[in-house]
């Protein structure tokens, strides 16, 4: 059976060495690209992790700050309660301001309709 005629080429025939160089350049490019992609992937994976750790540190710091502020608030509340001691207030009122309890005749009670009965619900009064 006759062999088909080979197709005529416009380019000069490539030497074996040149073909190997081109092939190795392509392989190198492919390797570089792959390495870049791997590196990119790794960075893409690591970046949120790094951010997460950073935010974790920040969160811990904020929690510590919050605890400190709450502690300070607590201390101030306790100080306020201590300053509201009735003995202290009475001392200031009587000794520093010259106040004294009113006499019975100096007080007039004004009752609303529901409170007409003297003393009704006196003990039961609550803060709203």
């Amino acid at each position, binding site marked *: 059976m006759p062999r088909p005629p080979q197709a005529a080429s416009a380019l000069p025939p490539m030497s074996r060495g040149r073909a190997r160089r081109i092939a190795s350049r392509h392989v190198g490019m492919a390797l570089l690209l792959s390495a870049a992609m791997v590196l990119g992937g790794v960075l893409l994976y690591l970046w949120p992790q790094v951010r997460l750790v950073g935010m974790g540190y920040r969160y811990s710091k904020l929690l510590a700050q919050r605890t400190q502020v709450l502690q300070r608030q607590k*201390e101030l509340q306790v100080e306020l309660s201590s300053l509201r001691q009735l*003995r202290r207030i009475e001392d200031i009122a009587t000794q520093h301001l010259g106040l004294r*309890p009113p*006499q019975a*005749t100096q*007080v*007039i009670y*004004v009752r609303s309709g529901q409170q007409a009965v003297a003393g009704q619900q006196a*003990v039961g009064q609550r*803060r709203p």
Partner: protein
Amino acid sequence: MRLSGRFKPYSGPRLRLVVGCFAFLFCAIFIRLAVLQVFQHARLRDLAERQYSRQITVRPERGRILDRHGRVLATSVPVPSVYVIPQDIDDSDAVASKLAKVLGQPLAAVQDQLSTVSTFVWLARQLPPEVGERVQKLNLRGVQVLQETRRFYPKRHLAGQVLGFVGVDGAGLGGLEHLYNRELTGTPHQVTLQRDATGRTVQVMAGDPSDQPRGADLYLTLDERLQYIAEKELAVRVQETQAKSGLVVIMHPPTGDILALAHYPFFNPNDFQDPKQRVWQRNRAVTDPVEPGSTFKLVAASAALEENVARVTDLFHCENGFVVRSGRRLRDHHPYGLLSFVQVIEKSSNIGTAKIAGRLSDDQLYTYIRRFGFGEKSLVNLPGEEDGMIRPPKKWTKPTHDSLAFGQEVTVTPLQLLTAYAAMANGGLLMRPRVVEHIVQGDEFQFFAPHARHRVLSPPTLERMNEILVGVVERGTGKQAAVEGYTVAGKTGTAQKVEHGTYSHSKVLASFVGYMPAEAPQLAIVVIIDEPRVAKWGGEAAAPVFKRLAQQALYYLQVPSQQAQTISLDTALNPIPAPLAGDHEPPRIILPLGAKAGEREPARVALSTGPKIEKERRP
């Protein structure tokens, strides 16, 4: 296939050797991986987690204790504590020297602590914040500062015996702190933290440390202001009478709410470790039953009237102050002849009361004693309550019947005594006293509703007894308890204390118990002065405290006196009475809590030239 000539040097046994070595190494690595990843997976994972994660137990902050108006009586504050890990300390002498200076402790004591073999040693707990900061600034290896909470009572000794106290480990050891320790403590929760190589927290893996639930808050029936008034007046009177101690309880009869429970000497729970104070830490209103003395005559008199064995007009001969009955010598503090039933109680005659009680059988007398709540716990929500002592009739001796009539051979707690009188003030209903009104934990709410135990007396008997008790204050032994402008009902008592097995003539328990206003009682109060030296009778030592207390308490509770000028907002346009002669200050008008702005105007118009109008200030 044959290798080309260039690769020939690498063929043959050497290549096989290299391939074999690599294969062996790969196999070894694979096997090791399998061992680590499969067979030892769980153990190694635990080890790793232990290195980078830490689980901590967050103890919730202890709940607060508040009065009936929400004023804080007990709370917790953060304080630093210092601990050491002895094996982490390099130069223990130098560290001990620095710490001793800052902590103010003896050098030898600190050195002892640092030289222990233990892995953890508390060096100082619950320090002032500035000391903790100074220790932290020293930056010593093996010395750590930890934030703990400390119980703090901002009102100091106010209601100290009721509140109790908390130990350094945060457990309630006395009073309400002990009884409601579980509720106040709350439930600890776990938080898992991830930490880095330096020990810093990187992130929270499970649980939320910022979400710290607090223990339950306890709302009491106590009123801080009434408690303050009670403690102040009690302290003054105990000092005036040079007594050993004193006690006051104030109750709201319709509900059984204890509004104040005061002791003197005081107990400051902030210094519970002070040995001088320890003696006074008990709440003697419930833990120490005492012989009630003449205040107990209420039972025999009420029982005789209720059982119709005596009438208020009946006369009793009081034997001129001395008689021998059932083999026992009975004495009165004054010699009396014929006295009516009413006068027997008003003048507090022991002989007369014994004769009244003599008309009752043993069983009848015993039944009424029990009906008034004596001999059993009142079930108040306070720890350590005692029953008191009353023997059943089959164990009585001959004189027991007479002795019980005037309050001997029986012991009662001050709270039981007050509860019995409060029943008289509450239409005969014996209430269960309460100190804790409700507990709040987050969204949960537990309410202790007022609870009526049973009816003690019928209305006609109550009415007669009420008149008799009013007579005691108006004409009898309790005159010093009278409060101007109010009707007071009550009874004095002077109980001899038992010393070396016999009744002492020098040591007595002076008491007064009563309620007011008698026509619509708002308060029942018991005052007990222990071993007064100056005024020994109940009417002299205890009644004046009752008077001072009642005056201030009724004023605070806005219960107008009979002479008080009271106007209704509906009729405020009527002219207000002129101030009484002798008053130098114009009277003030106090608008009730919750009065609206519009309600001020009628009063202002009516009183344009008169008194100054003020809106009542909320506590």
